[in-house]
């Protein structure tokens, strides 16, 4: 496949290599070291790093600024953009801002409802939804136009991604929803973290049957459990998360000090199994507050060193 | 049966407690009554199906309102008995009177007295 942007992530995916990305959450303050230090730990083991956008509606240093910090370090960022907090003017504006710093990847998301965060009394925006944001980025890039119709001087060249959650309800529309996002113009997908591999593989099969895997790069999301407690929490308290009982049992069956190691084991095993799943083009390793484990996960999964591609 | 019950009670006869509306309870208190009690049929035995259930809900609303404005929610009560339970009626009448005596006169009545003076 040909590439349309300068995105390193796009190049690696297009080359047929398995891509590896990870994620960092910005600090609840102004110290950029909170991001740059984490990025330093993982930069040689991933192709691009996502920066979350006020995740769970908790006010943090903005994704755009954090991406700029990464870019200045020579690391490839992926700007996560939720539609909860910004109207179409601000969204387009931030896209231009990101592109002006050479940020090449964007992930278009709805965003958790503000009720979950630190400002439950705040307004929300939802001027356009995540599907329409995908269309917007493509319009700006490929037609060089603003939503209002005017020409953009030097259009942004961004590689457009979105999230997919095969584990949310209703399951029957999760593949039609993927098809819809592809029709809207999405180019890569990062899935919600996978613990129920059977269900994920079923979703992938349905995607294959619809002929979708040649139209989009699907990256499988994984998150290592730090403890059985974390597994139980995510099973019971996080919407759209599917953690099978066997996984919780496996972790609970191990003494507390060994649970983190077991969590990493499960994660690596998942990656190894999903490598065989046709249509999976890479892995998105989300180890929030445990970024130091990413190198180990990447190495043990046989994904190190990362391919060096000529620019 | 000629049983005794306190003489300070004024009885208002109605075909069903379902006919008692919230405003009736409040007006009684507004005019200076020290307490109101609603006596209805046993739950499940209402001749008009659920009149006594509606009455109970309104009694609860009245209790909440009176409590919130400092008059005392306990001044309004609902009792359920069958019309053949005369001794129970007398007992309830006595119980209610004791309760009101304990609570003291309706502050509204005192305020009205003061105003007239």
């Amino acid at each position: 496949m040909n590439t349309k942007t300068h995105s390193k992530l796009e190049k690696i995916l297009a080359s047929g290599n398995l891509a590896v990305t990870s994620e960092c959450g910005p600090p609840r303050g102004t110290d950029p070291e909170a991001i740059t230090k984490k990025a330093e730990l993982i930069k040689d083991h991933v192709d691009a790093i996502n920066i979350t956008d006020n995740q769970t509606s908790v006010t943090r240093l903005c994704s755009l600024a954090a991406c700029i910090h990464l870019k200045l370090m020579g690391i490839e960022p992926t700007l996560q953009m939720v539609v909860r907090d910004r109207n179409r003017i601000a969204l387009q504006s931030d896209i231009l801002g990101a592109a002006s710093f050479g940020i090449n990847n964007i992930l278009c998301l709805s965003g958790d409802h503000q009720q979950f965060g630190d400002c439950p009394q705040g307004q929300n925006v939802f001027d356009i939804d995540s599907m329409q944001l995908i269309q917007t980025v493509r319009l700006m890039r490929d037609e060089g136009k603003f939503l209002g119709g005017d020409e953009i001087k030097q259009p942004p060249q961004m590689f457009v991604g979105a999230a997919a959650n095969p584990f949310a309800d209703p399951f029957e529309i999760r593949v039609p929803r993927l098809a819809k996002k592809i029709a809207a113009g999405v180019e890569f997908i990062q899935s919600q973290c996978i613990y129920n591999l059977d269900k994920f593989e079923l979703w992938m099969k349905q995607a294959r049957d619809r002929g979708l895997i040649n139209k989009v790069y699907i990256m499988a999301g994984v998150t290592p459990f730090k403890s059985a407690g974390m597994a139980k929490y995510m099973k019971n308290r996080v919407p759209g998360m599917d953690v099978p009982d066997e996984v919780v049992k496996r972790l609970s069956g191990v003494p507390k000090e060994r649970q983190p190691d077991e969590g990493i084991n499960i994660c690596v095993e998942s990656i190894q199994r999903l490598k065989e799943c046709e249509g999976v083009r890479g892995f998105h390793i989300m180890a929030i507050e445990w970024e130091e484990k990413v190198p180990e996960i990447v190495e043990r999964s046989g994904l190190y060193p990362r391919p060096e591609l000529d620019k | 049966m000629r049983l005794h019950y306190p003489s300070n009670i004024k009885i208002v006869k109605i075909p069903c407690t379902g006919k008692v509306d919230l405003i009736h309870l409040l007006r009684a208190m507004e005019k200076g009554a020290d307490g109101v009690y609603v006596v209805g049929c046993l739950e499940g035995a209402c001749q008009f199906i659920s009149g006594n259930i509606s009455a109970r809900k309104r009694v609860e609303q009245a209790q909440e309102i009176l409590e919130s404005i400092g008059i005392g929610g306990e001044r309004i009560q609902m009792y359920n008995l069958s019309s053949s339970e005369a001794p129970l009626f007398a007992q309830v009448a006595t119980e209610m009177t004791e309760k009101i005596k304990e609570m003291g006169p309706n502050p509204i009545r005192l305020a009205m007295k003061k105003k007239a003076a």
Partner: protein
Amino acid sequence: MIVAEKKPIEEIAEEVKEFNKILITGCNECVTVCEAGGKKEVAVLASTLRMYFMNQGKDLTIDEITLERQCDHEYLEEIRNVIDQYDAVISLACGVGVQFTAEKYLRTPVFPGVNTCFMGVSEERGVWSERCQGCGQCMLGKTAGICPISRCAKRLLNGPCGGSTQGKCEISKDLDCAWQLIIDRLDELGRMGDYEEIIPIKDWSTERAGGPRKVVREDVKI
């Protein structure tokens, strides 16, 4: 209809405590149906306020009247001859009625007695829920008669989001996921193909965002 809720008595009492002659006006329409501001509620509020103030040693007059509506000139005119007798009005109509009363009677302070909430339905006695936000461009034909703008917490036009769990919204187990409802209904209607159409970006200029709205029918104006 417009659904409203009674304001707490302490709040209302605080608003009018300095006045001596008050008129409470009810409305015979929406607020009667949702049991917040009809004739019965006017009577209850009047009685409660009288007792409240009497208990504090304050002597005041509170009168009651319930108008057919408070959003039409004809009905509000009915109090023109008496309103000057009062220092203040507590209107139990929805926010619309309170404002129209204030617009008509410039010399009398008007206070709201209810909190106006939304446009909705009576699901059952005592339960009312939201159905419409007045976006000005109804698209119910595309979503099997279920509105994603009023019933989806994120007003997604191409939902559901990844937080939909067992047919419920991520923000509350008591809230149906609007998009689950839409999908179920489309399925029942045999129109799942509609789901795959991308609903385009909405024109919000006919909604609150575009500024206070007006509908004018030149063909009907005299």
